[in-house]
């Protein structure tokens, strides 16, 4: 055990893991984060807290992660390479560990072009593979990135990374995934999966290559709230590709929200059957209410007081 957290235990015990995503607000309200955490409580092993997703300024992911944990929900603290150099990253890692954060998810981060400060300078001092390795070395070797020894308590995180499993070409995604796992990623959360056939190919090839032997993969699911949201994601969210037939299905339904939940439940159901899938990661940003329904309707047994 590294962090000794719920997510780590669930993954170690091969329990079907469920994580969900919480987007912090574009203001200073901790209560809005806490309200979302309360919605998820009992349904997820841990909740991701995004780090200025889409490069829009939001309440700090570390602060939001603390609000989430104050509600009894374990946080997966997200950190991107876009806004911090290695000095800030390591400082934040020590700070987060000192405050009881168990899980860190290392991401490259969306380019600032997609957010509300496109004129900003970007950092990308490290990339996500290098970040994963840095976090692992801090924890396992007790060394800062520069090689200096960390004297005293070490930051003991469960280390996560992300992958876009259905992006092309698959071979390239697999090469990159292999690097992340080799660097120290213990769990992977994927971008939203809509194309199951392609996802299965990805999982089969990952298994054949032995990439996931020491790493657990949680497949991403994005519940669609409306056909408009689906089209918006296709146009504006990098890395998300929703097939036309899914968009059409949303358009043609009388109750789009219900249809969105139905598609998500079907997807979760199908993903559970894919060999190698250790859990699902539900990304219902700004629609957190959908998570308890999807979890229940997909037949994942209630998580009790988790």
């Amino acid at each position: 055990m590294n962090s000794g957290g719920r997510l780590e235990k669930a993954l170690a015990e091969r329990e079907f893991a469920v994580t969900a995503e919480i987007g912090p607000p574009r203001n200073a309200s901790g209560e809005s984060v806490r309200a979302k955490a309360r919605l998820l409580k009992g349904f997820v092993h841990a909740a991701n807290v995004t780090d200025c997703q889409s490069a829009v300024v939001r309440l700090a992911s570390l602060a939001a992660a603390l609000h989430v944990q104050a509600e009894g929900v374990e946080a997966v603290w997200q950190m991107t390479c876009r806004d911090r150099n290695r000095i800030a990253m390591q400082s934040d890692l020590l700070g987060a560990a000192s405050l009881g954060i168990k899980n860190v998810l290392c991401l490259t981060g969306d380019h600032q072009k997609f957010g509300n400060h496109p004129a900003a300078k970007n950092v990308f001092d490290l990339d996500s593979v290098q970040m994963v390795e840095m976090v692992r070395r801090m924890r396992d070797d007790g060394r800062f990135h520069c090689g200096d020894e960390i004297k005293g308590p070490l930051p003991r995180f469960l280390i996560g990374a992300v992958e876009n499993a259905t992006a092309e070409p698959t071979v390239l995604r697999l090469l990159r995934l292999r690097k992340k796992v080799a660097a120290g990623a213990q769990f992977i959360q994927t971008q939203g999966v809509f194309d199951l056939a392609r996802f299965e190919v990805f999982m089969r090839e990952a298994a054949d290559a032995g990439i996931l032997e020491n790493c657990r993969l949680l497949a991403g699911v994005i519940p669609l709230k409306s056909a408009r949201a689906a089209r918006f994601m296709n146009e504006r969210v990098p890395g998300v590709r929703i097939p036309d037939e899914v968009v059409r299905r949303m358009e043609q339904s009388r109750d789009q929200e219900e249809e969105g939940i139905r598609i998500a439940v079907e997807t979760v159901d199908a993903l559970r059957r894919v060999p190698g899938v250790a859990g699902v990661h539900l990304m219902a940003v700004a629609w957190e209410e959908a998570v308890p329904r999807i979890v229940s309707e997909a037949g994942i047994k209630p998580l009790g007081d988790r």
Partner: protein
Amino acid sequence: MIVAEAKPLEELLACLEESRRALIVSCSGCTAVCLTGGAAQATSLASRLKIAKRINGSDLDVETAFLLRQCEPELLPAIADRCARADVLISLACGVGVQQLAEAYPDKWVIPALNTTFAGSYAGEGVWEERCGLCGNCVLHLTGGVCPVTRCAKGLLNGPCGGPADGRCEVDPEVPCAWILIYERLQAQGRLELFTQVRPAKDWRSARDGGLRRFSREGMSRE
């Protein structure tokens, strides 16, 4: 001009372990001016590689090709025969030239023999110094002709940090504080109001941060 410095020979030799026939391609542009990438350096590098390989007990056949400018795609086909004979191409151009060479001969492994370091100019005999950060949004008219983006280690836009001592940068006491130079120049010109105006945050979209930069001059396309 673009300034580039030689990579350690060891780094090049490590790339040449399997190689039998190398072609060194020089550039008579910027890297020749800073004495790292011209014809003379190509001849010298050829000797150094041959000597080092021979001492290691293996032979390397090294040819040299002299190009007027390696960043000019039109000039590259001239060395096609020699490139074809070589199993590896060693470029003495800046990163731009290296990429043009690689693009012209995509099946060849192209090894940069130089590290491209900065856009700068002559600063005394045998010395070159950085002058432009290629940020795409010039402020030199506001800063007395001294670039704070490159010559201030922090790239500050509103005057010096608290670090300089005796007019020197805290990062390198050999280097004058850019903002003290700016202040002195503006003061001498009687334009200190330019210093006192608060400069807003820079729009970095025009710099590398905004993604690949590309410039097209209207009226030059044949399409």
